């Protein structure tokens, strides 16, 4: 058991030290030396997903700082988490854990409602731009996310 644990630990350390299993690291094994695979281009929806997660976390911080805002802000955070889950599914990568900020302390200070509103407006532009150039099967998804973000900004007026 002790041996197994140590092997596991070393394996884990190895992965961490190697960083994100880069093509270079794999190339070192000789497996891919003939055909070095470039890192896959980020999905066009990745910025939309990143903003959904950042906004959800920003709402969590604001509620932690001012619990009186919970009733108003919690549904908005939930909308962003719903978006993030769907975007992750469509992008085809594992959904990041949507843990609330309370369990994952963050150094960032809580935003004011006015700042959250500005962030929603900026995020709406990202989603709208994604919608305008999206293939047909992603047009409705990105369009609804743009609309939801605009509606959030309206709700925060």
């Amino acid at each position, binding site marked *: 058991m002790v041996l197994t644990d140590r092997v596991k630990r070393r394996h884990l350390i190895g992965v961490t030290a190697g960083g994100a299993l880069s093509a270079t690291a794999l190339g070192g094994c000789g497996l891919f030396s003939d055909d070095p695979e470039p890192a896959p281009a980020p999905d066009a929806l990745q910025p939309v997903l990143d903003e959904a997660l950042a906004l959800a976390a920003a709402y969590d911080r604001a509620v932690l700082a001012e619990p009186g805002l919970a*009733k108003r802000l919690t*549904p*908005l955070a*939930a*909308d962003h988490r*719903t*978006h993030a889950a769907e975007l992750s599914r469509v992008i085809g990568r594992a959904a990041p854990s949507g843990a609330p900020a309370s369990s994952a302390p963050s150094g960032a200070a809580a935003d004011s409602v006015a700042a959250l509103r500005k962030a929603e407006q900026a995020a*709406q532009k990202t989603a*709208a731009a994604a*919608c*305008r150039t999206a293939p*047909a*099967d992603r*047009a*409705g998804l990105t*369009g*609804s996310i*743009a*609309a*939801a973000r*605009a*509606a*959030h*900004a*309206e*709700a925060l*007026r």
Partner: protein
Amino acid sequence: MSAQLAAALAAEEAAIYAYGVLGVKLTGEGDRTEARAAEAVHRGRRDVLVSRLSALKASTAPAPAGYELPFDVTDRASALKLAIQVEDGVAQAWRAVLPATTGADRATGLNALVDAAVRATRWRRLGEVTPATMAWPGRA
């Protein structure tokens, strides 16, 4: 694309009719200003759709003279409820336009979807309906 645009036109026609009915039941000046602005926007979108469909040589059914409302509009509360339903319906019609279009038509549809979602939220706020937002505006 024409079928989705024709459905959006039908939704806009219904919205114009509904605002005519519900507008008179609103009480505050803020409510009424908002309803007038909304009706003007829906009339503008209807006109854009009529000319776009005409350019596409698509036939459109004439707007019905009247509509059966989902419930009686008797007071401010039922007027606000109808306004919310109308904007949600308009959002659904325009969302269906997005996958069927590209370029300028897609942008028109997106703007209309966003606008309807914002108006629905504004009516919910005025009617103190919570939550005032939904995760997927326009998704039926």
